[in-house]
């Protein structure tokens, strides 16, 4: 239902950085979303998050969400959701459900990034390089699409690095 045309539009609450001290407070959800049980095949996405100098960001928090995994993960507390802190070397890893009946071009996950020094969270998404072109990825200028592609590794996992700034800067989204 649309609001009346003359309804006052409320002014949004602005963002502030997550800061360096969220980890203990968020640990409940990190524990809850690690090693979830799923009835679907899975993909593992690993990578490193870097700043504009190429220095690993070792205190980020990452959230990955796959809305197609709800049924396959129905028995877990927060289906389709993962929360992981980046490690001391900036590394992160998500094991994600990839149900056979989900659209083949769906992203492996919608990803949200939080960190000290990042004054607003950043939305992005990770796509598998061997999946058909997603309509979301098709909206990204071709020259930058590679920043959202996870590359298949010899062991069957996928590699996806995040670059917050500068050369090869990851594409960040604002949803309409």
């Amino acid at each position, binding site marked *: *239902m*649309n*609001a009346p045309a003359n*309804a*006052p*539009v*409320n*002014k*949004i*609450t*602005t*963002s*502030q*950085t*997550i*800061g*360096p*001290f*969220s*980890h*203990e*407070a*968020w640990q*409940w959800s990190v524990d*809850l979303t690690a090693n979830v049980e799923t009835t679907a095949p899975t993909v593992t996405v690993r990578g490193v998050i870097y*700043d*504009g*100098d190429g*220095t690993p960001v070792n*205190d980020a928090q990452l959230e990955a*969400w796959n*809305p197609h995994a*709800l049924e396959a993960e129905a028995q877990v*507390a*927060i289906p*389709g*959701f993962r929360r992981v802190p980046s490690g001391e070397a900036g590394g992160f890893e998500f094991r994600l459900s990839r149900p056979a009946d989900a659209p083949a071009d769906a992203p492996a996950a*919608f990803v949200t990034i*939080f*960190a*000290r*020094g990042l*004054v*607003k*969270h*950043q*939305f992005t998404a990770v796509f598998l390089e061997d999946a058909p072109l997603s309509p*979301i990825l098709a*909206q*990204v200028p071709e020259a930058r699409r590679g920043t959202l592609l996870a590359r298949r590794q010899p062991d069957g996992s996928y590699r996806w690095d995040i670059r*917050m*700034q*500068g050369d090869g*800067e990851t*594409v*960040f*989204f*604002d*949803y*309409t």
Partner: protein
Amino acid sequence: MKFDSVPSGVYPELVYPEYKSTVKRGPLQPLLRVDAALPVTENIATPPALLLPGDIDLTRPEGCDGEAIGERIVVTGRVTDEDGKPVRNSLVEVWQCNAAGRYRHKKDQHNAPLDPNFNGWGKMLTDDEGRYRFVTVKPGPYPWGNHHKAFRPAHIHFSLFGNVYAQRLVTQMYFPNDPLFDYDPIFQSVPDEAARQRLISRFSIEETMHEHLLGYEFDIVLRGRDATPMGL
């Protein structure tokens, strides 16, 4: 839901040199506006079973015998979208330092005391009116390494999931009349004065409880409008 572009100045500047950590971490490219169905119609589901009895009273954490030291307060407010519609049944997480300005966090090196009866985190779901409420102690200001005499104004961190994925917000709530506002580059990284003021809670005599605690109200407006009734 629909997500209009946010007017310039309302969000903090991603690279704001006075806040040093932003210089190499803030993206330089403009955000790409994308049309994607699921982020604006669906969300992460957080069942009420996730909530524990101690999650809305930070002054008496589970497993502790005593009560947190500090100025006991209640913080409450409504979470709405841009149309003023309540954001119902939605996860709100909060975390903060203790009354002495120290976080229970392995990397907090500030030499203020930890309080054995205070962890400093909680979570709750909003009710049918979009309201949340929790009891805590007022967090202290604390020094940080950003610049000479850098102290953060007292603040409580908030994380909200909203009704759809694209409403996600992490922010900080401040307290009225803090003398540190003018010197805090995190607060000042928001160019728009009115947007900064919306991060400051209001003292509430109505929420104040006789001989028990002081009340603060902090309303939160998430992005998004034209929610369908089904979406709520």
